[in-house]
């Protein structure tokens, strides 16, 4: 059987069972079968991938290639700068933009030996939870192509689930890795804020954005994360010290681990019954495996969503100011510079981006600054304090990743609030800067994947992955989206 995980491929490659070119061909063959339906990629660099794979095989044959990801095809969310490869952030305003430099995470991924398959689709500037906000058309969920893959890293999730990459990097500002991982039946991790350099990541909300892995297994996620994390002199917010190895506690099980179940993480009534049942079943299974289940409370968490929707738009209103048609990207001429700028922005930005830029500009305006942005920062401080208190009594916190499984395309596009609430469980970790991971634990009655979230304190990746790996083992979930090579994806047979 052909390998489908990062580590599986790495082992097969080193054992001589496959070549890197074969791995690349496998990915490209899958893409030729499913991309027309899934649309995970904005740029699929077939030629570059095959050439890099051939070089990787040569290097391995001549005794080189010691990187942990040597020869493995990995996909990149299209909001990471790739030298010479179009980088759009899913926006019309950046169509045709080719960065002159690689993001630090991309540099490190390549240094670890990984091969870049291409750039995956996303909600424009990572703003969204369904990948429907991409200026280049939506991505569909490989489990059911009538449904969204989640977002904003929906393209990265769909690529891995559909087998068109062995793993992928996404970015997570309010759940943008974990929620699509949950909806696509994958593992998706957002590391501690500052663990992975943001240099070259096109900013949405700088104080919340983190790059992280989307993979089939917890082990893959830990390996991929350790390949790209670490201090970066180009990012003043990167964590300056040594990071613990993410795979440092794998295989240790749950015996004695204190697992906090959050009772008030933002209104549990919105959780679908199947998601809730699956979650409770897993908590009970964890207890049977030796975990000590404790009640935990984050009293400020119900305010997290509102705080997030002030802080993230405020930061994005400034971050997106640079897209003005002057130096790069789309330019629509006008009689004056101001007119050129405002026409370029009006033409280049989609409605969700415009909505958030307006919200953020308003939240920072004189007279409203304190009531909105100031209050939101206070909530953020309270949430950090709540987490600190909660972690006095437990090692990890758990919750569902998303209140629902994958929803139909178009279902929530008319009502932004209904889209926003899909991040209600994931946002608190971003506000606190803590790591969190989503692990698939089962299917709902419509055979759509359900995700289970494990949260840990800052730099707690080892214990987080330890718990996540135990959950993964308990769930025994097959992460490969079901497909028939002759007929494409199940949901695609319409």
């Amino acid at each position: 059987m052909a390998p489908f995980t990062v580590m599986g491929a790495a082992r097969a490659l080193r054992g001589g069972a496959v070549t890197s070119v074969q791995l690349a061909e496998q990915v490209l063959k899958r893409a030729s079968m499913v991309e027309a339906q899934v649309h995970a990629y904005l740029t699929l660099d077939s030629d570059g991938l095959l050439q890099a794979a051939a070089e990787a095989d040569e290097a391995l044959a001549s005794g080189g290639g010691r990187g942990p990801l040597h020869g493995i095809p990995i996909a990149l969310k299209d909001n990471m700068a790739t030298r010479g490869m179009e980088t759009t952030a899913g926006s019309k305003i950046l169509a045709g933009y080719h960065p002159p430099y690689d993001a630090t995470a991309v540099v490190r991924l390549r240094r670890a030996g990984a091969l870049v398959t291409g750039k995956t689709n996303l909600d424009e500037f990572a703003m969204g939870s369904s990948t429907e906000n991409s200026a280049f058309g939506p991505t569909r969920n490989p489990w059911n192509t009538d449904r969204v893959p989640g977002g904003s890293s929906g393209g990265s999730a769909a690529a891995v689930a559909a087998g068109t990459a062995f793993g992928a990097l996404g970015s997570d500002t309010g759940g943008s890795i974990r929620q699509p991982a949950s909806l696509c039946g994958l593992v998706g991790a957002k590391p501690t804020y500052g663990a992975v350099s943001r240099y070259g990541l096109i900013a949405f909300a700088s104080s919340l954005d983190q790059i992280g892995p989307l993979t089939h297994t917890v082990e893959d996620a830990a390996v991929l994360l350790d390949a790209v994390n670490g201090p970066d002199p180009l990012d003043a917010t990167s964590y300056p010290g040594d990071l613990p190895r993410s795979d440092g506690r794998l295989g240790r099980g749950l015996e004695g681990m204190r697992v906090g179940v959050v009772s008030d993480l933002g209104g549990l009534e919105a959780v679908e019954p199947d998601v809730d049942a699956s979650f409770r079943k897993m908590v009970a299974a964890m207890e049977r495996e030796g975990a000590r289940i404790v009640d935990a409370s984050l009293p400020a968490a119900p305010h997290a969503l509102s705080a997030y929707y002030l802080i993230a738009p405020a930061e994005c209103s400034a971050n997106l100011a640079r897209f003005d048609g002057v130096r790069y990207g789309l330019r629509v001429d006008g009689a004056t510079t101001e007119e050129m700028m405002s026409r370029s922005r009006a033409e280049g930005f989609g409605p969700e981006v415009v909505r958030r830029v307006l919200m953020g500009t308003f939240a920072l305006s004189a007279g409203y600054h304190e009531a909105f942005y100031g209050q939101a920062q206070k909530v953020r401080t309270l949430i950090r304090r709540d987490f600190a208190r909660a972690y006095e009594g437990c090692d990890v916190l758990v919750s569902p990743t998303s209140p629902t499984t994958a929803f139909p395309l178009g279902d929530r596009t008319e009502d932004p609030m209904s889209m926003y609430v899909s991040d209600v469980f994931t946002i608190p970790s971003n506000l606190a800067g803590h790591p969190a991971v989503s692990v698939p634990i089962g299917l709902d009655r419509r055979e759509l994947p359900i995700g289970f979230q494990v949260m840990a304190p800052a730099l707690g990746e080892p214990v987080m992955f330890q718990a996540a790996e135990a959950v993964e083992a308990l769930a025994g979930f097959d992460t490969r989206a079901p497909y028939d090579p002759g007929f494409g994806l199940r949901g695609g047979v319409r």
Partner: protein
Amino acid sequence: MSWEAVIGLETHVELSTRSKMFCGCPARFDAPPNTNVCPVCLGLPGALPVPNREAINRIIRIGLALNCSVTGRSVFHRKNYFYADLPKNYQISQFDLPVCVDGYLDVGGDHPGRVGIERVHQEEDTGKSTHMGGDGRISAAEYSLLDFNRSGVPLVEIVTRPDIRSAAQARAYAQELRLLVEALGVSDARLEEGSIRFDANVSVRPGPEAPLGTKVEIKNMNSFRSLERAVAFEIGRQTACLDGGERIVMETRHWDEEAGVTRGGRTKEGSSDYRYFPDPDLVPLELDQDWKDEMAALLPELPARRRSRYEGMGIDPAQAATLAGADVHLRGLFEGAVEAGARPQQAGNWVSGEVVAALRSSGRESLADSPLSGPNLARLLAMVEDSTLSGLAAREVLAGVLAGEGTPEEVASARDLLQISDAGVLEAAVEEVTADHTEEFARLCSGEQKLIGFFVGQVMRRTRGKADPKLAGRLIRERAGL
């Protein structure tokens, strides 16, 4: 009605650090356009700023020199506004937590006073627009060229309290500040190249107890003179307005150097809501005591202190101010000469008078690498004191030393300028001139004193200017029996 002017100045000082404020590009903008640029200072998507430690070092020194308290924790904010030469469409600046607050600068001279410093904060410079076609203004331009070499060059903004009361005092403050910045060695401090730029806030009120009037910001002053003229004009304009029963409009006005007037902006300034918020790409600066102490230890002697040290040497205040404001080479020459035994006042007069004049006529820019040393100047002055050289001859010797002809003694003897102070040699000359002018000598002998000068002149002529005129006068008197 009499009005009191209330003036505050905002000064931008461009730091002469090797690299820019938030990236590694050279902080030089005289290179071909858009060559000292990178993803960070071009504001490319994904690029992030990292603060330049040397720039922080320098702002701390500026703050300490301005008697400010340096805050323990300082934060960079984003100042949001759209402008084509501002690559990110926000400027990284500081808002409520600047690096330095609450200082002062004492201004001496004709307009003494203490000017309070409200804050000193760090920010980055913008790029440069050149408007092509039309009259060079943006409104009439066909297109504009943008050069981002200057984008991200470190700037320090120094904001005074509204403590200045006249245009002349504004100028005195500005000059004192430039001297200070120059002494600190943190900036090229050249006004004409824009490495120091002044904006003034001017208002007038009926008297010192009255509340502050509506303030007007004036920009575009490129010299101390234009700063003084602009402020004076604006004070006059505002008082005339008020006397005429009009109201002052809060606005930004631009100084028109040629017309000698300030003009209201024709372009709409837009809202001044910059929506400041802490830049999430940067972490707060933690300025601990060790860092501040390290910078305090690096402070050089500052102009005010130097002036009082010079005055303490017995130099008059005007001369002390001139010398203290002179460049490092001239000051070195002065201090070296005094150390080698020259009288301070005499050395000061020579350095700021004869030496500067000699430099100018020799076409040299400064004394850097000049053969004229402190000890050389001291010897030259000693030769004047003991009458080995006349004042006139000493100037010639100075030129020779500057031209590299040798020590003052060598130049004087090579050019045959040593004064004749040998009574025996002069006696002969006196004898000759009295013999040549018997009629005049008889009148002198009979008491016509004013003829002494005539005979001294004759002796000087006969000795080609080398005679010691005092000695010659004495010998002539003796010979006439006076």
